[in-house]
């Protein structure tokens, strides 16, 4: 729909359901008589009675297209273009604006306006659908009158087993306001079906997941981080291991959208954390076609496959942010995707010295998969603040910490070969003479910082198959 033009001269927008508009009705009539005025009325075409040149805008088309946020609004139009606008009633502003003196004798000096109907929260989304010239191209699906829409979405296979929000056009358009990117822009080719995945499709699934529009840039970045050759989302689906992507968010956007990096950061209860991770998984399920029992061959899976996303506690961290360790820029908004098989608690409530705590953390790492499985593991250690402060107090850098933990996970081949320790599982016999067999691959250990201030705990996120054979951790900047 094209934007309706405003007539030259002075233009007013009013509604009857606004005490300030009622108050200035006679002032508008005065202006109309003395210099000319066109008045658009939003709720009652007969209002204001004293004015002659009234235009019915109960459809709100003119108000919506001219971004009227407050009534009364006065606009001066010259040669078809808006030159200036003022809102509310203020004699001090209205007199110079109209070039008229002695306006509104007997009225108070100033009264604030009311909200324009065109931005009424109950109407805004529908008006957007009506007037924005929607670029949405997805197939429309009409549920029959007797269908329960929530049940229908389960039956169509669109959900992860929990209810989803119906992705109506109004909700999707509102979601798309969260990004400057065009709905038709192809974000990724989504595995496993290799389907072109547009910003619009991501927005639809973000609505379903329960995201707010301001989360959309993070969801888009998460989708970009996992749907590529190096992260290998298809492999994560196809494996019998329980791997799924965890998304760690860095940068100021964590605060702007209200993410959690403190109490229960990896658990339930924070809308942004929960729905961003879920939206990513719904994109993989719905757009990519990755469903359990089909391409997803996980033996057990794990709860994080519903969605796993948390923010890093950068402010409380002794070190720089995670994304900066992986080629990103400190302070930049970014997501890091890592293929993890779940979460494991590492407790150590007695160590006060870094060396002792390093040994506890290394012992935890050794347990990943099977304590006799080595070589090529990636892992993320999320240190709780009380563990991290042991290293801060001792002045340890993150590099120093990683180096020491990795060193402590090296074990002699003789302990790891098949049959050693009475366990058939193990590395081939020819490696029995090796002295220092590392558990994690070089560069494979990441350290992040999150959790609440109380608790001498850290969380281990064991990796899946790493490197070119498996999944490589990926950091992607978040674009608006």
């Amino acid at each position, binding site marked *: 729909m094209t934007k309706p033009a405003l007539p030259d001269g002075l233009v007013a927008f009013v509604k009857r359901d606004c005490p300030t508009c009622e108050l200035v009705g006679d002032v508008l009539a005065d202006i109309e008589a003395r210099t000319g005025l066109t008045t658009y009325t939003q709720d009652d075409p007969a209002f204001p009675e004293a004015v002659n040149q009234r235009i019915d805008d109960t459809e709100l088309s003119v108000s919506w297209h001219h971004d009227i946020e407050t009534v009364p609004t006065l606009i001066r139009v010259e040669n078809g273009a808006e030159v200036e606008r003022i809102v509310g009633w203020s004699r001090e502003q209205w007199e110079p604006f109209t070039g008229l003196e002695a306006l509104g004798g007997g009225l108070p000096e100033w009264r604030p306006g009311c909200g324009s109907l065109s931005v009424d929260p109950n109407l805004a989304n529908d008006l957007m659908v009506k007037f924005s010239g929607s670029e*949405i191209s*997805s*197939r*429309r*699906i*009409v*549920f*029959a*009158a*007797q269908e329960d*829409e929530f049940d229908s*979405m389960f039956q169509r296979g*669109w959900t992860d087993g929990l209810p989803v929000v*119906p*992705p*109506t*056009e109004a909700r*999707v358009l509102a979601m798309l306001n969260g990004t400057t990117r065009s709905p038709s822009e192809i974000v990724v080719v*989504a595995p496993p*079906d290799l*389907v072109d*995945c547009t910003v*619009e*499709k991501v927005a*639809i*699934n973000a609505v*379903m997941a329960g995201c707010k529009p301001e989360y959309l840039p993070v969801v888009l970045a998460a989708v970009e981080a996992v749907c590529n050759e190096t992260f290998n989302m298809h492999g994560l689906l196809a494996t019998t291991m329980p791997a799924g992507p965890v998304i760690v968010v860095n940068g100021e956007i964590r605060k702007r959208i209200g993410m959690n990096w403190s109490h229960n950061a990896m658990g339930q209860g924070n809308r942004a954390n929960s729905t961003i991770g879920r939206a990513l998984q*719904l994109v993989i399920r*719905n*757009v*990519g*076609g990755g469903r359990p029992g089909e391409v997803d061959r996980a033996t057990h899976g794990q709860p994080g496959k519903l969605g796993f996303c948390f923010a890093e506690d950068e402010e409380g961290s002794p070190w720089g942010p995670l994304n900066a360790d992986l080629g990103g820029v400190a302070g930049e908004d970014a997501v890091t995707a890592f293929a993890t098989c779940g979460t494991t608690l590492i407790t150590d409530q007695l160590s006060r010295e870094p060396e002792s705590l390093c040994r506890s953390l290394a012992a935890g790492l050794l347990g990943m998969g099977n304590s006799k499985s080595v070589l090529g593991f990636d892992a993320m250690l999320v240190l709780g603040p009380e563990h991290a402060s042991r290293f801060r107090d001792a002045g340890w850098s993150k590099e120093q910490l990683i180096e020491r933990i990795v060193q402590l996970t090296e074990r002699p081949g003789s302990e790891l070969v098949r049959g050693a320790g009475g366990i058939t599982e193990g590395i081939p016999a020819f490696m029995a003479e090796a002295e220092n067999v590392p558990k994690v691959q070089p560069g494979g250990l990441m350290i992040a910082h999150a959790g609440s201030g109380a608790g001498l705990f850290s969380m281990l996120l064991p990796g899946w198959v790493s490197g070119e054979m498996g999944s490589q951790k990926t950091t992607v900047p978040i674009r608006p």
Partner: protein
Amino acid sequence: MTTVLDPTGERKPSDWQRLERPTSLDGLTVGLLDISKPRGDVFLDHLQIRLEQIGAKVERFKKPTFSKPAPVDLRHEISTTCDVVIEALAD
């Protein structure tokens, strides 16, 4: 009535797909659902005779009232015990 946007890659038709039609009813269980409209049972009695003549096994069901959808338990019973269902409208 709600209209939503398709969240999928749109590789499959969006409408519900009909089950494949059987080529013969011989040996299949046919459910006859009486919706409780008057004389619907008369029509179904005749259908039962004809169906049994061609080798079908017939199960009879009845909705408590024609004015409401069949109860969930009844729908479940029909869907788990029958291969085919014929619903009789009558007036």
